[in-house]
């Protein structure tokens, strides 16, 4: 049976790859190098990181929570979770996307410079998006905006013609719905 080798033998051809975006919550010991282990795993095995946020969330037990958004086929997502679980300082890996529709928020700082009508329009749009002005002069605003990814994307797009000069974003923090902890 010598079929034409249209595909290499590495990716499985019996499987049609449709990529999905998943939000993972990873609890780790807050020790030196732990983030490098996670990042190195992703770069070494060719996985994607779309967003990453890290902070110590339980000070007494020195636990940090890493929230990451990654994309891949279901087989790759399963691999990512198992590979993360294999890292020794990792306590738990939770796929928030599989467990339900998680609450996801991101914070962005958006600097807009300009005068006249554009400046007025920027401020009006900021109010509509419930963005706060946290710094201002007669020639600029810095807005603080919090929300889901698409809200922030939309706000930034709207600011583009109004004198957008700089954006800083935190990446997504996520938590599951309901009274239970993960």
């Amino acid at each position, binding site marked *: 049976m*010598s079929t034409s080798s249209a595909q290499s033998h590495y990716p499985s*051809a019996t499987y049609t790859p449709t990529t999905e975006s998943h939000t993972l919550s990873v609890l780790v010991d807050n020790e*030196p190098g732990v983030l490098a282990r996670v990042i190195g795993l992703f770069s070494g095995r060719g996985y994607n990181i779309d967003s990453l946020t890290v902070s110590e969330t339980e000070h007494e037990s020195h636990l940090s929570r890493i929230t990451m958004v990654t994309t891949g086929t279901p087989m790759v997502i399963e*691999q990512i979770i*198992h590979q993360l679980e294999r890292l020794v300082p990792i306590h738990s890996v939770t796929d928030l996307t599989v467990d339900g529709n998680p609450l996801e928020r991101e914070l962005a700082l958006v600097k807009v410079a300009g005068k006249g009508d554009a400046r007025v329009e920027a401020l009006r749009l900021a109010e509509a998006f419930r963005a706060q002005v946290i710094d201002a002069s007669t020639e600029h605003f810095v807005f603080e905006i919090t929300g889901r990814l698409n809200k922030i994307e939309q706000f930034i797009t709207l600011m583009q013609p109004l004198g957008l000069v700089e954006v800083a974003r935190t990446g997504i923090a996520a938590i599951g719905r309901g009274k239970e902890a993960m």
Partner: protein
Amino acid sequence: MAREMTGAQMVLKALADQDVEHIFGYPGGAVLPIYDEIFQRNDIQHILVRHEQGAVHAAEGYARSTGKPGVVLVTSGPGATNAVTGLTDALMDSIPIVCITGQVPTHLIGNDAFQECDTVGITRPCTKHNYLVKDVNDLARVMHEAFYVAISGRPGPVVVDIPKDVQFASGEYVGPSNVKHKTYRPTVTGSQDAIRAAVDLMAGARKPILYSGGGVINSGPAASQLLRELVRLTGFPITSTLMGLGAFPASGKEWLGMLGMHGTYEANMAMHDCDVMVCIGARFDDRITGRLDAFSPDSKKIHIDIDPSSINKNVHVDLPVIGDVGHVLEELIRVWKARTPELDAKAIADWWQQIEQWRARKSLSFRNRDDVIMPQYAIQRLYELTKDHDTFITTEVGQHQMWAAQHYHFEEPNRWMTSGGLGTMGYGLPAAVGVQKAHPDALVIDIAGEASVLMNMQEMSTAVQFDLPVKIFIVNNQYMGMVRQWQELLHGGRYAHSYTDALPDFVKLAEAYQCVGIRAEKPAELDDAIKEMIAVRKPVIFDCVVDQVENCYPMIPSGEAHNNMLLGNADEGGELKDAISEEGKVLV
């Protein structure tokens, strides 16, 4: 329990508490306090290697042949970077290693100090876990954790990087019984439901096959016994990966030989045509599966593995059983016996008949000659003349390694040490040194290629110094044979840099190392030469001059399926040129 001592004393105390008897290492500035402790104690023997890579491979050989973790001690900077190949090798083949590296004093870390390197940064992707110990009061705990991590779950190498000032500092020692790892708890017992479902699937099989791997060896001798019992109970045919040879005896009638790229015709055809595949402690590596979309297309696959990340990595499996092979097999056998399922005897007899037809192709046969030693013949004679001894075999990497796997037959586990995953040329000689240290009275043979063995030839000096009578059996065709084979199949016979001009005279080289050199050039003199090698109670370099252009068959060409093998004798000539497709050429 706690006792005050220096960091260097803690290292030695922890090794003693972990029942370590031998360590392989090389001194240097940043580990001198630990060496000073070794000098002052005599409960742990240090084997001085000639290169740090050799230290890790020796520890790997030691670990594989005993089931105990191997321990390595090297200095900072170049000591640590030289160990990287060995660590990666141990990670790929799941060998438990604890590697202690010296580091520059903590106040110099990050200053580009002399012999400084970012050891934990460099070794992070090539170890199971690693530690930089900055406080002497953490050192004892870290040492015990390192052993726990190295041997638990899927075994692997662990690095403990210890700055020189921490080795000098005093702190409190804690014993191993007071240390419990915070997070790492691998699953060892398989789920009952999964095991029952596995028995159901196996009981209904018409064309079953067992495919075992290095996980069976790693699980311990009991797992090999359980595997044998399972085969006896079910009567299923069994094949194994390179890493799993010896778990099931090669003399067993259910044994099909090794599978994969250079596996037997019957093993690969049975894998392709089976309806139920039970993968036991193996990982569907690309050397095994060949072309993935044509891999065993009609089978239900059961996968027993201790590492959840091995499941569904390359091949979709229908029934994963996460757990230690030994535990899972014990339970599986219990359930099987309790149920005593009625197998479809007719179907299984037909299946065996089919397998016998494949076996009749005699895929390992070769054209022997009487004017020149054929490499396969050399291995066959070596096997016949050494099989009744207490023999351990290590190999380098290449054609000779595959011929050894095909023509040397193993009856017991832990007798076969080879670099499978990483394919490290230069593994075999230092590994043999480690094996011989663990088994001083055994016959330890490194089946080598002349190119590979030169990569760590300096370890002959270690063998001589420590009176380790390893036998280096060089299958010498003057080529990097596997490279040449691929150049022949893929690159129009343009043998770019695969011929070694100016090889040393291995007999004289042996004499230079103060060991024994033996050469055989004709088939007629081979047996006597091998017997002479066995009889010598010193390290031997055996230069077995073989046919230069013999290729290793059978072979699944890269990018092809199991049922599309090249059988050497049948396919010689024109067909080989086109055996590998354009797409296959980009694969390794």
